[in-house]
């Protein structure tokens, strides 16, 4: 597997992984920008509107028909977040040519289509079509309203929204359907043009074509990309401490039988010089695996919940735990979740726990090279944060993480917010 990255146009970076191990190739083209509340709804809407029609394929039926002709290739609108940097654009998976009749590669066709989706939408008088914008803004509003249908994700989103309410990070949670409904096509067009002119562009490819062939396919596809003054000043603001002395507690109710508990911490001191490997292993020890402290204690030993797992955002510096619990067990669960973290702070990490967590993390990273989507996510993240670490290097680093390093990360954590979504008979309140 050969990885190469180059700036192929001003502010356009092509990262290509040559490999012939997969049945299909993967490509994504994304515009990078700063996540902020002012543009969050507009930016979320843009790729969906662009996918409604292009100059060559003026409506969705045309685009979908063409994709089916390309043997079920995809062109999926994506908006990804890496900390407070947003990557917005399109992702495509398409069959490798050697598995198609005639052995013909689809790389050029797919590159052209992604370029056209991004740069040549169906417009009138230079403006995005009001029909498409109005239709997609309604769908965005519907999606926002529908977020509560998935109770677990909803509870997590509410925690982020409430915990990080003063930070751009919370702009990734779209919660106001009216704001989506109010987007006007002229405003959306302005924002779209602004993004095209100012955004650095990340193109990622993984497949059986070499770097030069990919570049030759991508360059003409993006030749119409306007390049103004590029905004490279994008990044993530890391808050080191909790907002208040004691964790803020939020209670909300919904028609649910099982309470959804989500807790959030600032990772704190370890974000001064983030050690991605140590943070991963810390998370695995705490609640990231089936041999973690949370799983063993909260689920296996105490049967308090069906799930209790932790996750981290190692770019923004957040630790979170979610758990599905009986409402009556709220206090006991919160206490139990904190107690397991306290054990790590005190260095109570057995050799078995440490070696299992190291193994789990390093193995998971070594397996990234077998999955085109995981490869894309890994390199996109590394490129956005400016780190040049391959999955294999990160895997090797995980093997060397010590219990002391893990305890140090735990010691720096600061619980900032606790959110609980439970059944209707409890009054909603905010302490």
């Amino acid at each position: 597997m050969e990885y190469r990255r180059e700036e192929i146009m001003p502010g356009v970076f092509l990262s290509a992984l040559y490999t012939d191990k997969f049945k299909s190739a993967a490509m994504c083209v994304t515009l990078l920008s700063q996540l902020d509340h002012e543009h969050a709804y507009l930016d979320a809407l843009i790729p969906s509107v662009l996918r409604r029609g292009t100059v060559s394929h003026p409506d969705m039926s045309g685009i979908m028909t063409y994709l089916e002709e390309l043997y079920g290739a995809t062109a999926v609108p994506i908006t990804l977040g890496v900390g407070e940097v947003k990557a917005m654009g399109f992702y495509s998976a398409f069959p490798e040519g050697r598995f198609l009749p005639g052995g013909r590669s689809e790389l050029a066709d797919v590159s052209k289509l992604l370029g056209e989706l991004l740069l040549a939408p169906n417009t009138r008088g230079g403006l995005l079509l009001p029909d498409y914008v109005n239709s997609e803004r309604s769908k965005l509003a519907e999606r926002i309203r529908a977020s509560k249908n998935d109770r677990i994700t909803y509870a997590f989103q509410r925690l982020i929204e409430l915990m990080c309410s003063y930070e751009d990070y919370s702009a990734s949670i779209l919660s106001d359907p009216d704001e989506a409904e109010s987007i006007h096509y002229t405003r959306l067009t302005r924002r779209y043009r602004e993004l095209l002119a100012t955004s650095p562009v990340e193109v990622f490819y993984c497949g059986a074509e070499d770097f030069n062939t990919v570049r030759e396919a991508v360059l003409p596809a993006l030749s119409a990309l306007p390049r103004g003054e590029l905004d490279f000043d994008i990044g993530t603001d890391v808050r080191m401490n909790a907002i208040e002395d004691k964790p803020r507690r939020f209670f909300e109710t919904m028609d649910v039988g099982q309470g959804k508990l989500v807790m959030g911490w600032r990772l704190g001191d370890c974000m001064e010089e983030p050690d991605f490997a140590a943070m991963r292993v810390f998370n695995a020890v705490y609640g990231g695996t089936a041999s973690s402290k949370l799983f063993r204690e909260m689920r296996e030993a105490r049967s308090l919940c069906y799930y209790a797992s932790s996750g981290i955002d190692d770019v923004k510096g957040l630790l979170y735990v979610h758990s599905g619990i009986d409402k009556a067990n709220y206090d006991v669960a919160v206490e139990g979740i904190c107690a397991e973290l306290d054990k790590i702070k005190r260095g109570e990490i057995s050799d078995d726990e440490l070696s299992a967590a190291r193994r789990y993390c390093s193995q998971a990273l070594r397996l990234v090279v077998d999955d085109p989507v995981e490869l894309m996510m890994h390199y996109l993240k590394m490129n956005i944060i400016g780190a040049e670490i391959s999955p294999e290097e990160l895997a090797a680093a995980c093997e060397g993480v010590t219990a002391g390093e893990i305890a140090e990360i735990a010691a720096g954590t600061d619980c900032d917010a606790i959110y609980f979504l439970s059944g209707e008979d409890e009054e909603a309140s905010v302490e």
Partner: protein
Amino acid sequence: MTMHSREYPGVGDTLWSGKLDNGLSIYVVPRPGFQKKTAFAAVNYGGAMRNFTLDGRLVETPAGVAHFLEHKMFDLPEGNALNIFSERGAEANAYTGGDMTAYYFECDELFDENLELLLRLVTTPHFTEESVAKEQGIIGQEILMTEDDPSFVLYNATMGALFDHHPVRESVAGTVESIAGITPQTLYDCHKAFYVPANMALCVVGDVDPEHVAEMAERLTVREYVNPAVPDYGEREGLEPIEKKAVSYMDVSDPMFIAAAKLNTAMPDGDEALRLTTVGELAARCLLGQSSEFYTSLYAEGLLRGDFFRDVSRLAGTLLFECGGSSAQPEQVFERLCETLNAAAKKGVDPAAFERARRAEYGVSLRALNSPGSICASLASCRFGGYGFYEGFDLLPAVTIDEINAFIREYLAPERLTLSLIMPK
């Protein structure tokens, strides 16, 4: 036991397969140069197989036993298998469907040790009163979690509207009440009935030696051939839904719907099943796929959203069709669906749309070969259906438009459909 290999040059894979004397089917797809090794032990037993004959006696079990058993199989005398996998850094899990229970792991090191553990866990029943009681608490929480999930509630309501007495009516996990009746003996009975090698498949994908996998399986499973129990789904059901419409109310933003039909309630085995399923999938793609007139026009009119899905699949002796999503006006969507089916029955599908559907189906199936987990699940499911997985790729070019049109006329009649709804409270 000798493993036999067959190449599928069109998609670049080689499948090694064999069967032990005890009846265990083994499939290996070598992937040289890959780090990931995936092993998947599947049992031809799921939530719908509640009633069966064992040693000449009829056994009736409560809803949720197969899923409960899946949880408890991880308990070994030496500890919890999930923890042992996890300590070795392997990613392991299991799931239970209506007609299959599967246990799997992924790793890049200690493959032999992990495979041994996988085979040990599916062949070692170890249940106590205490551990069963404890699991009732954990699964009770899982059930509560699924009962909060509108998609899950909708699916179960749909099965309830389609079927009169077939056990697919019930949730695979059962209810808090039904699992309360499970005892260690229930679990031992079900294990004895279904977890026999002849009723199982071992599938492996990765950079492994097929012969070595077969040798290990032979060494680690019993020698004798034991016939599995025969599930009893009750009297064969008719093709009309029990209810034309089912409505539930939950705290959801907009209505959610599934339109579904029983296409067949006595599925044939073997190639006939493969052909029927493939033709059904292609027919559904032609009529309701992403480029179809139905989807693109309803999407543009605001009646459908990006979450619209369609599916034709085998389940516990039946073949089911379903499509659904969320919509502010699900009744109108249903009306248009019926119009689409009626029109297609009269005029047939557009030949160009058929060719595109065939191409897309091929590309999507090819892409799924990037996922070892998906390959393993398909190999096992096809084995239990009595046909070959990779043969599906050969079949696609052989399906004719006449078959598609005949399928639509015979199976996708609007009067066979039920409309199931979750409406906002």
